[in-house]
């Protein structure tokens, strides 16, 4: 198959690779370069300033706040989301009533229905979800507070997004709401491929459901959990958190910088404040955080692969 092979390879790769290099790779390289300049983004002139942007960043209180919030997102969101999803998936697949002459382990009745419904938020744009919840959180006329009034909790009327202590949690709740379903379906598929004999053996040995979950289901599902963890963390550091914070919070990033995240701060510095070089500096910090997060999860999560 040598005839014309290289011409074919070049012909097929040129367009995709060229587009990718121009719009993705080249800007990445440029932005690392720009982080050592004083470029404003408004005019084409700039000069090299060494590590000035980096030392400025280390003294920037808002940067530290955004870093703190981003780290919280990357650590807490995957734990909560994946924890809930594993719990739901286990209930759906293993929590069923034992039927006479049926298999030892069964899913609950209507498991298909739950999987369909839980997946709803996943197909909606995060921007639409964020808008919807911005209204739901409205302290006076929002759905949540009026629901609380309706069930007799009229005294409990939080300001939600208006309360600096609560706003970040309110935003995180929305991200959990919108991603749990995806992981439920993902883990359900994984659980369905675990052979029933494994469960039968565990039950014969006297294991209850909790033990079964931690000793059988979780280890066999570990690879999926781990890649889901990295996936969720990257989302929580990047595009998803940008959308929810930018759309839902006042400021955006407020009140009083209580919800600002790194990705939003990059955007604001570059496209609102005309400090493109400084924005890329924060972007480089975000890159470091993202890669470190992925490396740590892959490292901590390394286990012997279980074949079945």
């Amino acid at each position, binding site marked *: *198959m040598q005839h014309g092979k290289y011409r074919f390879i070049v012909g097929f790769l040129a367009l*995709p690779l060229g587009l990718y290099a121009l719009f993705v790779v080249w800007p990445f390289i440029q932005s690392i370069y720009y982080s050592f300049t004083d470029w404003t983004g408004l005019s084409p002139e700039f000069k090299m300033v060494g590590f000035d942007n980096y030392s400025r960043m280390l003294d920037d209180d808002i940067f530290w706040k955004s870093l703190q919030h981003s780290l919280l997102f990357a650590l807490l969101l995957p734990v909560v989301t994946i924890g809930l999803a594993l719990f739901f998936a286990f209930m759906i697949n293993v929590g069923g*009533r034992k039927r006479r002459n049926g298999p030892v382990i069964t899913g609950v009745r209507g498991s298909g229905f739950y999987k369909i419904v839980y997946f709803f938020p996943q197909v909606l744009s995060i921007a639409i979800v964020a808008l919807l919840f911005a209204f739901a959180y409205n302290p006076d006329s929002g759905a949540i507070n009026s629901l609380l009034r309706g069930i007799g909790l009229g005294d409990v009327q939080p300001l939600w997004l208006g309360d600096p202590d609560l706003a970040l949690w309110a935003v995180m709740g929305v991200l959990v709401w919108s991603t749990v379903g995806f992981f439920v379906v993902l883990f359900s598929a994984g659980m369905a491929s675990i052979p029933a004999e494994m469960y039968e053996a565990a039950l014969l040995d006297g294991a209850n459901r909790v033990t079964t979950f931690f000793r059988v289901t979780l280890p066999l599902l570990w690879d999926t959990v781990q890649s889901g963890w990295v996936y969720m963390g990257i989302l929580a550091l990047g595009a998803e958190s940008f959308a929810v914070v930018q*759309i839902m919070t006042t400021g955006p990033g407020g009140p009083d910088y209580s919800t600002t995240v790194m990705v939003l701060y990059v955007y604001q510095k570059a496209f609102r404040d005309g400090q493109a070089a400084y924005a890329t500096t924060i972007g480089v910090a975000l890159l470091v955080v993202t890669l470190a997060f992925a490396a740590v999860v892959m490292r901590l999560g390394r286990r012997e692969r279980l074949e079945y």
Partner: protein
Amino acid sequence: MKTTETPAPLPAESGAPITKTDVPPPAPPKEKKEGTVLNVFSHGVLVIWAFMVVLPLLWAVMTSFKDDRSIFSSPWSLPDSLHFDNWSRAWTQANMSDYFLNTVLVVGGSLIGTLVLGSMAAYVLARFDFPGNRFIYFLFIGGMSFPIMLALVPLFYVVNNMGLLNTIHGLILVYIAYSLPFTVFFLTAFFRTLPTSIAEAAFVDGASHSRTFFQIMLPMAKPGLISVGIFNFLGQWNQYMLPTVLNTDPDKRVLTQGLVQLAVSQGYKGDWSGLFAGLVMAMLPVLAAYIIFQRQVVQGLTAGALK
């Protein structure tokens, strides 16, 4: 969100460890009880979460039929009459029809481009051995874990210098470029699983490399293309960050952007019911498509993570 229910009552560990030599007769009452308690509990938790998912969506649909006053005074009451005028107002006056059209154009163009370019690159990377193959492959998939926002700052000026800012085709090219990492990753794995013998036979019969690709390999790769196509369709249809940065012309706005702008401008216009109608209008087609093509959508979206 954790429910406040008590944790599952753990079935008491059976007093004596069951050994193989001394298998006690199964105790039906206890087992039945354990099953029932667990069953009730798991159903309870699952139903609560199902409500929490559906309730906000139903609330939005309901609100889109109400007038502005009752939206604020009683958020949970049913609409006194169905205000279909909200919907027509959103469609015409609030430019939802333009946003829909822009989104369809952008997503249509990018989806086709992504699938064509992605499968070409993936096929070459999966089937041909040449110096630099691994490097190019990792260059592509590296794009999956990098924070896109970092590239967007210079990208804005790259796109601007090329005269592509605020154009539909410029947005299409950028969408394609940022969809390639996952598409190449997924399709490379897929092309590797296809048998080589058929392509070789075609080649022996005198078909060129590109003819073999378009007439034999692409049709064989159809299941993979459908999965990755659905994945990209949803990702591009729901895209918010890229257009927010690169598409600042009010006339070119895509759906997500348009809705957010609409929400911002309601601060002084006050047409909240129209905004809710717009939101529901944007939600329903995707939800309907999901319910119809449920199996394929789930497969497409989870396929990548299961690899």
